[in-house]
């Protein structure tokens, strides 16, 4: 079982507009609601690959119940802790004419010490059914910065591999507990430990630094659909040669999902895991709105993925 943690989930509201004009009246052609948050996106991609997944984290209010219901419809098992306040929503404006997606993200509700105690209790129990767990995204107000570090420690003690995909202090603190794989979330800042991720060399240096700080494997994305993977002994450059990208939102989460899926499938090599994770990211990027919905789609993308050991 692949478990995912989403401490700050959101109800994604996607508004499709023909041609967006700022400071003017805009007619919405289509509005849709989707369960969102990085961990939830990972679960959706894992499920698309035909694997079992359980999503945990915080939910609250009517928005939370919509998310739970939608996830169960997709065949994703849920075990969320319901907090007193409603969770946030993310609004994505899709400008169809210019093919641009603009994401506006709310801050999540405050969680209490009791909520944190309960989520750690749920996490401990769920680890008894898991092979790998992904810890993704931002944390809501009231959450200590070492929450992911604590979770990595619990997971490792229960024999579960942990994948960390977040940013800031919770990322650096998480690295101290030596996760299986770490991928910095570069949406808010393109710097990792002071290194600006604006060219290949810097991405390589950042990937090496993440490994030096504790991760067994690191992934750093740079430019569109280009990633550096690193271990203590090796570095890979991976890229997609497909250039008709429709939507990059969620592609990084699909990459994490692909790696988690591959890592739990017997004797697959690291090269194969990298290739499959890149294929999942591309499959997600080729979908206009929601996540890709079959393993076949990911497998078909393999021919567009090139990996090279540096």
């Amino acid at each position, binding site marked *: 079982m692949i478990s995912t943690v989403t401490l700050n989930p959101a109800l994604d509201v996607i508004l499709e507009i023909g041609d967006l004009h700022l400071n003017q009246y805009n007619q919405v052609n289509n509005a849709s609601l989707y369960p969102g948050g990085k961990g939830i996106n990972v679960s959706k991609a894992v499920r698309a690959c035909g694997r079992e997944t359980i999503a945990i984290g915080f939910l609250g209010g009517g928005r939370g119940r919509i998310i*739970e219901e939608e996830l169960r419809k997709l065949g994703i*098992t849920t075990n969320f802790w319901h907090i007193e306040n409603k969770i946030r929503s993310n609004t994505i404006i899709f400008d169809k004419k210019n093919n641009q997606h603009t994401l506006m993200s709310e801050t999540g509700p405050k969680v209490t010490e009791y909520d944190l105690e309960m989520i750690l209790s749920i996490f401990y129990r769920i680890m*008894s059914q898991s092979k790998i767990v992904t810890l993704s995204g931002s944390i809501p107000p009231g959450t200590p910065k070492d929450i992911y570090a604590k979770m990595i420690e619990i997971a490792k003690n229960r024999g579960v591999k942990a994948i960390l995909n977040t940013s800031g202090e919770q990322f650096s603190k998480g690295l101290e507990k030596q996760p299986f794989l770490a991928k910095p979330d570069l949406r808010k800042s393109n710097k990792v430990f002071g290194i600006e991720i604006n060219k290949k060399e810097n991405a390589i240096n950042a990937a090496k630094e993440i490994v030096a700080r504790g991760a067994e494997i690191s992934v750093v994305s740079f430019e569109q659909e280009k990633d550096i993977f690193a271990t203590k002994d090796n570095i890979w450059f991976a890229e997609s040669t497909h250039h008709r990208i429709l939507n990059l939102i969620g592609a990084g989460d699909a990459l994490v999902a692909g790696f988690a899926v591959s890592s739990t499938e017997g004797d697959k090599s690291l090269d194969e895991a990298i290739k499959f994770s890149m294929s999942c990211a591309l499959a997600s990027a080729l979908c206009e709105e929601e996540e890709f919905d079959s393993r076949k789609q990911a497998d078909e993308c393999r021919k567009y993925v090139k990996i090279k050991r540096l």
Partner: protein
Amino acid sequence: MKIKDIMIRDVTSALADCKLYNLLEILSRHKITGIPVVNQEQEVIGFISQHDIIKDTLPNYLGIINSGSILSEFIQLGKSLKENSNRPIKDFMKKNVITVDENDNEVLAADLLIRNKIQRLPVIRNKKLVGIITLTDICRTLIKE
């Protein structure tokens, strides 16, 4: 049809040492009437419902059912719930819990739900909780068929 194809994929549960007050918060926030009680390995060791709590906290429970009115006992219920709010749910839960395997079929689940007059049946795989099945889910599936 296998139960795993129609069950609710939710494993919301509580530990046996969860306090009654906290359990009521869980039931209220999830808008459900009962949940499985599990150990740290997610194995089902009991089941607790609102019905079990009221039965245990109100001595005249059977009398209320027969009288058709809870009014006379309402003050007593509030007082009793407050007194018991810090007690662990292991004091109230059903220990002989009825479960069903995810690979069993819907007929068995319906039979267990009806015969035992229960609303929610934990679904397990190798003793571990993987979901919940209710009569509503089964009926909904039968209508669709």
